[in-house]
């Protein structure tokens, strides 16, 4: 199947404006601005069934329709903070197929009446930000960004903005705070960004991959997009495959592809021909799927079906864990991450990740007891449902499912004490 997002894999030099345009690029944007009403653009996206690819899976068109039209100006912010351990898809899109992403940003702006968009890139994407600045300048020069586009009254500017190393800024309200020049700490929601966003103005925040789908949806129609994937989860998804597989990387596949196909057919199987012990389908934020029965690998990866395994598909960053790995080591890793990245605003997350890290470290070092494992589970469960944003909640997922689904690993770890 030809790629829809990672088109640079088939079309050389699609990261130049000439080649992008030769392949139909920017026609959808020109057509929208000159021939469509903004709400018609939103309707096409709504009908396509496209859902947010950043992790939450919220219907994109519905989000756009929430924009508050009584309060102006409006903004679009592209979430290019890509910081979830196991996720590395947005970087490839922006490097390989930058104009399709930028056209997606432009279409989102037109649909919600925004005249300015910010691309918030994680600070580490330093070189990529400079690269995108060049691409934005090329679009301006070619008349696709700027004042009074295509002789209409519509004007648009796109800017890049670099973060500086904070996972929490991937949370949309923390991102907006950061963009306003403050510490990246989440806001209390509601109000949600479509009514109260950047500078207190209505704002749509979308992930890079989500936006990159939009130009082809406009060009080929909602039905074309819906014909791929499943009824619940339309379209294609980039699965970032990592961990103990032979061929890690990004694989763009229809939603509903099985874990087995991803890991064995595309990923070349498990290193050293070991067996899969666990899968984290949504990066470090994921619940651990226990693979104690080979049939589990035949589960289709779509938003609804992955839930039946007691996990979420999230951003589809599939980390494969083989049978050489013990879960006490694994959760010590994930908790170290979340403790480091907790923004410190709300008590359950700040204190919870701190105390969990003491416990996971002690257990992993072989100095823990059964009581420590019980306490760890207890702390994790006390945090659930009480944190200001999803980060705190995410930190507990691997801990709870690790202890509950892999009790033997923890029995072994504490028996060393």
């Amino acid at each position, binding site marked *: 199947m030809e790629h829809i997002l990672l088109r640079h894999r088939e079309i050389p030099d699609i990261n130049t404006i000439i080649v992008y345009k030769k392949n139909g690029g920017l026609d959808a944007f020109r057509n929208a601005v000159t021939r469509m009403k903004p709400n018609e653009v939103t309707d096409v996206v709504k009908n396509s069934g496209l859902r947010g690819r950043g992790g939450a899976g919220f219907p994109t068109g519905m989000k756009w329709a929430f924009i508050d039209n009584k309060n102006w100006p409006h903004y679009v912010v592209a979430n290019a903070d890509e910081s979830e351990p196991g996720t590395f898809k947005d970087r490839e899109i922006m490097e390989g197929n930058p104009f399709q992403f930028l056209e997606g940003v432009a279409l989102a702006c037109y649909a919600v009446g925004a005249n300015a968009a910010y691309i918030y890139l994680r600070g*580490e994407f330093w070189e990529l930000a400079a690269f995108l600045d060049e691409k934005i300048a090329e679009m301006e020069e070619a008349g696709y960004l700027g004042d009074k586009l295509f002789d209409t009254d519509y004007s648009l500017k796109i800017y890049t903005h*670099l973060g500086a190393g904070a996972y929490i800024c991937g949370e949309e309200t923390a991102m907006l705070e950061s963009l306003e020049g403050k510490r990246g700490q989440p806001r209390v929601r509601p109000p949600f960004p479509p009514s109260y966003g950047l500078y207190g103005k209505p704002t749509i925040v979308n992930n890079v991959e989500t936006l990159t789908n939009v130009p082809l949806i406009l060009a080929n129609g909602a039905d074309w997009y819906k014909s791929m994937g499943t009824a619940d989860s339309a379209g294609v998804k980039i699965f970032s495959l990592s961990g*103990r597989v032979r061929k*890690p990387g990004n694989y763009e596949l229809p939603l509903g592809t099985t874990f087995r196909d991803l890991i064995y057919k595309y990923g070349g199987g498990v290193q050293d021909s070991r067996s899969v012990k666990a899968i984290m389908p949504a990066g*470090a934020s994921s619940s651990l799927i226990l693979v104690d029965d080979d049939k589990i690998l035949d589960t289709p990866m779509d938003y609804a079906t992955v839930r039946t395994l007691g996990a979420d598909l999230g951003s589809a960053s599939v980390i494969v864990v083989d049978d050489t790995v013990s879960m006490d080591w*694994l959760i010590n890793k994930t908790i170290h991450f979340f403790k480091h990245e907790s923004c410190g605003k709300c008590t359950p997350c700040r204190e919870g990740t701190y105390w969990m890290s003491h416990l996971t470290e002690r257990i992993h070092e072989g100095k823990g007891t059964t009581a420590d494992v019980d306490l760890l589970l207890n702390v994790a469960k006390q945090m659930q449902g009480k944190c200001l944003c999803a980060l705190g909640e995410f930190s507990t997922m691997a801990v709870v499912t690790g202890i509950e689904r892999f009790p033997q690993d923890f029995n072994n770890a504490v028996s060393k004490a």
Partner: protein
Amino acid sequence: MSLAKKYPKEVKQILSKYPPEHKRSAVMPLLFLAQREEGYINKASMQDIARMLDITETDVAAIVGFYTLYHDKKEGKYRMQVCTDLPCALRGAEEFMESLCGNLGIKVGETTPDGFLTLEAVTCLAACDKAPMFQTQGPDGIKYHENMTVDRTMELLSVLKRSGREVE
């Protein structure tokens, strides 16, 4: 010297990105600019940025303290930031780091005696399929180095030291 005097073009370009009434948004890019030469941000720069944006010095210091890519004290000219997070660790990042420490003769968090390099362990850099990997943070910004071996890393460092250029 103030940032506006030292880098007039860059400061103007940064401020032009944000609505004038929300110029506070420029604090992050201005801090990167202030950090460019020395690799850290001193008190005078924070005061300078605070004045430029009509915010307090505490507001600026709070940003410096919150984000990991800003530094408030002088360390190595280059920082080598190795990802040792879960996906990289599943592909040998911890062994890579250990071996690197042995070769450099320093521990994680330490700086080489000649002040050239500070070695740091960092969380996910979105290159999980290309582990072991690290980024360097130095006078020319941030650069990724992926699918690395210890030998290639040591080679990279010796070229960097000699020529100031990062080539593998």
